């Protein structure tokens, strides 16, 4: 029928209202996702801001000498961060010293030698190791690792290397050594999984060319494949380092919680994360609290620096190879 009671619709713009509404939702979606991103930026900003502001009392009282003093006396209101920085760095370094060779060698096996199915299964299992909660590592550390270290490792270490100040002094179970060992177990999966991936990513023709020239498999791996994958491997080391620095529970259960610097690995120590975990709940008094928060800021700063180094490394190598 030509005539109708309904107003004539513009045939070229059917459902105009509907489309307008959809475009509105389109805008809304854009704004909502943008808002989420901004909110996250705000959260990070808030964190940095809070940390900075709350550290002010300590910063103003001690200045940067806070980082070089080694006396931690909440009673006398003398705070020095050095024992904790020392403990954090020593345990993290020890962890890497052990984990990197093990991790890289294991990743070599998984990437170069193992048949693909076995490699996948083993990698799967190793990544499960990364998922074990830290407090469970602490449990194992207290009840399994420390007795083992006490009965086997320390006697052999002291008999062979006892002349080094590194292994002198009495061993009480809880120590920098124990913490370093627990940390090494915790970070090895990260090194293995990332290194294995970058090793696998090295093109096959590189290997084939080397083998064609008569190198052994190991020589190929060591002289061709690993150097090619160097960036990724170092990236995994940085990742492991960041994890080792921030680790709290496992460390506080085995490190001894003693704010003293000692040359010996057998002595108890303290790490930044551990002291915050132990003392924050009872810290009263502005200077005490802000000292602990300043320590947290220092730790955060350390991880920022490591992250930045890792990124710079990736960028420079990418640029070089481009």
């Amino acid at each position, binding site marked *: 029928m030509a005539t109708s009671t309904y107003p004539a619709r513009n045939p070229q713009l059917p459902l105009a209202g509907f489309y307008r509404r959809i475009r509105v939702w389109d805008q809304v979606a854009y704004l909502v996702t943008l808002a989420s*991103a901004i909110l996250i930026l705000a959260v990070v900003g808030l964190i940095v801001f809070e940390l900075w502001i709350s550290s002010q009392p300590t910063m103003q009282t001690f200045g940067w000498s806070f980082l070089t003093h080694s006396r931690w006396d909440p009673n006398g209101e003398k705070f020095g961060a050095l024992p904790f920085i020392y403990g954090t760095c020593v345990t993290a370094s020890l962890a890497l010293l052990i984990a990197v060779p093990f991790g890289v060698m294991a990743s070599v096996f998984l990437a170069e030698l193992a048949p693909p199915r076995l490699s996948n299964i083993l990698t799967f299992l190793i990544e499960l190791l990364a998922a074990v909660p830290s407090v469970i590592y602490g449990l194992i550390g207290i009840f399994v690792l420390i007795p083992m270290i006490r009965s086997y490792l320390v006697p052999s270490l002291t008999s062979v290397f006892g002349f080094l100040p590194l292994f002198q002094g009495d061993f009480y179970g809880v120590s920098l050594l124990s913490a370093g060992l627990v940390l090494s177990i915790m970070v090895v999966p990260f090194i293995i999984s990332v290194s294995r991936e970058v090793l696998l990513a090295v093109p096959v023709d590189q290997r084939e060319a080397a083998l064609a020239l008569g190198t052994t498999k190991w020589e190929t791996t060591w002289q061709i494949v690993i150097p090619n994958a160097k960036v990724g491997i170092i990236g995994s080391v940085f990742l492991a380092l960041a994890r080792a620095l921030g680790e709290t529970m496992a460390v506080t259960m085995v490190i001894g919680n003693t704010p003293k610097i000692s040359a010996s690995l057998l002595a108890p120590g303290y790490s930044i994360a551990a002291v915050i975990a132990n003392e924050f709940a009872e810290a009263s008094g502005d200077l005490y609290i802000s000292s602990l928060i300043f320590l947290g800021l220092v*730790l955060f700063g350390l991880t920022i620096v490591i992250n930045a180094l890792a990124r710079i490394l990736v960028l420079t190598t990418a640029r070089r190879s481009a």
Partner: protein
Amino acid sequence: MLMAISQRRKFVNALMLSLSGLCTLIVISVLFFILGYLLFHGARSLNLQFLTSLPKPSGETGGGMANAIVGSFKVLLVATSIGVPLGFLAGVYLAEYSGKTFAFLFRYVVDLLNGVPSIVIGIIAYAVVVRPMKHYSALAGGVALGIMMIPIAVRTTEEFLRSVPNSLREGSLALGATKAKTIFAVVVPAAISGLISGLMLNLARVAGETAPLLFTALGNMFWSRGWMQPIATLPVMIYNYAISPEEDLHQQAWAAGFVLLALVLAVNVTAKMIIMRGPAASRR
């Protein structure tokens, strides 16, 4: 002479390769040792009483961690509802809308957030939630863990959305769908298996976090009601029991460790299997 060199090289080859195998063996055996030890000690102390009763005062035997198990779930629920939507939406923005410079800066900031030590996040949550509210709560614990979930949520969302081929997007746009509809009705469902597995891995990671809960959720001897009360959680209970000298509590710590690890590993395995199934399914 030549023979000696080539023999030496062969020897070094064999040595280093077997060393690499040995290292792998050691790492794998550590894993199995941890699992086995936990299984042995944990399963021994794991009984119905442990799973259903409340902690008993020290000195009295029996008692369990029922409230801690439920408590962990509650806190994780809060954490997921805070961290995952934020991370997901931001990841969508990153993958679909944002320009290059913003994306680069944003990714750096998110990396920073990832690098914040968990204990520091606990302090922040204490300052921002517990102190103003004047009580410890499951909410505060959830906020702390939620903040920790954000970086991984952002990263996995972006990664899996980017992995969806552009042809899907183009096809949808060609059919007249708007950008938003394309993203949420086409791209996201295509990446869903990756997103879900990313969520599960994220969840499994924060499920074991203890440090942020120390100053936020505190702990509870009883059932915690609602979200505004201190609440018992598995990792914190494990920690408290592990450092106590009572043998009975040690056994409970092992049992709790077993439960926690079993849950975390189960979630991890499921997540990985979803990933393995996902791309194959979408190829159909």
